[in-house]
């Protein structure tokens, strides 16, 4: 039996291995160094003791200053991994991320580049309310010059983090806080994923479930329930949201003729809308039913447990969306 690790351990290993391999890899953010306990969940624990507090730099609570420092260092050739503790806090640093990190390569005519990774965590389920849990990936995917990545397993968290650090462009790496402690197979150290490549996690002939991040685990459960009813679902894990793997998505939906896109972000104007539009453009004649989307309710993330549960997409939501494609 292979060893098990959780997401925190896998990401920590990826950072550690990347820093050991390349002196240019840096880590910065609130509380990331060891005197501050390596972050609120300990993802960066041990790194500053090993690589020093100039390379693993705890910062003030100042997201614009964090992103600015990361961008400046990246322009000179470093590969910073900047932690913006929670995804909602990226809103404070949007100018730096959107106007600068994403655009400097283009605006400079290719003279400068920003090989930067932004780590951020989010996700509802912990009762953290309206400003700590949003999935905002569509905003970033909508910006030319940014890549958006999110893992669904610890092993992928390792390989995708390594890929983001190695990439020449700014990458936003989204971690799901409520599943940080979920265990999975340990990564093979040194594995670097290819960005922009999806993975078929379960093969099926009747319907394609396209998802990424935490909701992949929902899709895996739902697929077993559907199988009991004779529906074979194929699960495609995007892994990279932008640019997403159009070929793998299209091949799966061409085969099944039915598609449900599942994400935790609210449904309107989301990643699901983009993929649905793409599929209807490419595969209109091969679709047996309209492409369906399942996401959170279009409201701010609520606090109270019953509200939070109703806000998030449920297994039943996915099942009824799948069944609607058979009507």
């Amino acid at each position, binding site marked *: 039996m292979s060893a098990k690790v959780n997401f925190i351990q896998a990401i920590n290993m990826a950072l550690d291995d990347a820093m050991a391999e390349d002196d240019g890899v840096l880590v910065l953010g609130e509380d990331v160094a060891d005197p501050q306990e390596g972050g609120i969940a300990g993802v960066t624990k041990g790194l500053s003791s090993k690589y020093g507090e100039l390379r693993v730099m705890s910062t003030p609570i100042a997201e614009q200053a964090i992103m*600015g420092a990361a961008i400046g260092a990246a322009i000179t050739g470093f590969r910073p991994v900047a932690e913006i503790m929670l995804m909602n806090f990226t809103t404070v640093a949007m100018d730096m991320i959107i106007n600068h990190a994403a655009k400097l390569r*283009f605006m400079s005519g290719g003279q400068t580049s920003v090989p930067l990774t932004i780590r951020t965590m989010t996700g509802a389920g912990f009762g953290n309310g309206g400003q700590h849990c949003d999935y905002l990936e569509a905003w970033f995917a909508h910006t030319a010059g940014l890549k958006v990545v999110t893992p669904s397993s610890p092993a992928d968290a390792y390989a995708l983090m390594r890929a983001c650090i190695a990439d020449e462009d700014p990458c936003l790496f989204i971690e799901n806080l409520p599943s940080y402690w979920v265990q999975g197979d340990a990564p093979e150290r040194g594995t670097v994923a290819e960005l922009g490549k999806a993975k078929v996690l379960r093969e099926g002939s009747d319907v394609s479930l396209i998802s990424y991040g935490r909701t992949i685990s929902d899709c895996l459960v739902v697929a077993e329930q559907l199988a009991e009813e004779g529906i074979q679902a194929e699960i495609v894990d995007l892994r990279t949201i932008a640019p997403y793997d159009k070929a793998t998505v299209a091949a799966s939906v061409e085969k099944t003729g039915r598609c449900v896109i599942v994400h935790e972000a609210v449904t309107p104007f989301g990643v699901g809308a983009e993929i649905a539009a793409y599929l209807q453009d490419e595969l209109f004649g091969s679709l047996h039913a309209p492409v369906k989307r399942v996401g959170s309710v279009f409201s701010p993330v609520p606090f109270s447990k019953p509200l939070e549960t109703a806000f998030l997409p449920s297994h039943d939501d996915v099942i009824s969306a799948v069944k609607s494609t058979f009507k």
Partner: protein
Amino acid sequence: MKETQQPDREVLLDMYRRVNLIYQNDERLRSAIRSGKIATTYYSPRGQEVIPAAVSVNLTDEDYICTIYRGVHDMLAKGAPVKEIWAEIGGRATGTCKGKGGPMHITHPATGVMVTTGIVGSSLPIANGLAWASQLRDDKRVTVAYFGDGASNIGAVHEAMNMAAVKKFPVVFVCQNNGYGEHTHYSLSTSARQISDRAAGYQMPGVTVDGNDPVAMYVAAKEAIDRARNGDGPTLIEAKTFRFMGHVLGDADGYMDKEEKKQAMANDPVPRFRQWMLDQGHAQEEQLAEMEAAITAEIDEALAFTLSSPMPDVAELKRDVFAEELN
């Protein structure tokens, strides 16, 4: 003022050359825009010539600057090539950024012009990152962040000043206080008696200097740059100056105090510096005339180069968005 800090004759001549280059460049550029040879929005630095000239004679090509949309004087003073700057402003393929950035985003890493931003206040957080890179490499480079008095009221500036002070980044913050943020007078937008007072809140030296006085400006810049280079941390310099051409070329100046503007223009720092050089015996008339003629020729050449250069190929839209060209 210590005698040893005074600029010697060679330095004064070098400063005057840069001032005159900025002055002639601006006169010619405005004329080229007004006559329709070049089509662009333009934020003239006329009246602010001395500040970056006095700063830049204390910098090397290896030192970095981050500047802003009203920043062509800062780039020229730093040594960025006149021809390529003009071609960029003209939207030509031969521009510093292949015509993809324009006047608000001119970048020229070979002379240390690392970022030019169109977002008020955003030069400072990125300058910190360049300075952090110098700390990491221990290369003794200094980074200068230019910004205006209007920017001193935006949050990013304060986040950046705080972080620079905490981390002792080798950076110099140069606020060119021209009395107006867009169309609003200093007195209506800024609570501080003077911008340099704000340095006290960050435990860093803050000085207010007459930015149009070449010697005073040189002395203040040298002290701050030496301090940064020696590892003693950041300085805030408030350089008092005036903007002769309003916010954007063509604005009607209806918001400006006519008497204030008249007085400032009567005190034009460019002819004043020239006359002072002659009066003090630092230069002879023929010598300056020869220098100015060479600059005129250089600008003639830049204009001709621009007008004879091709516009960018539309295929450029797919290049430099990411490291890899888009399909």
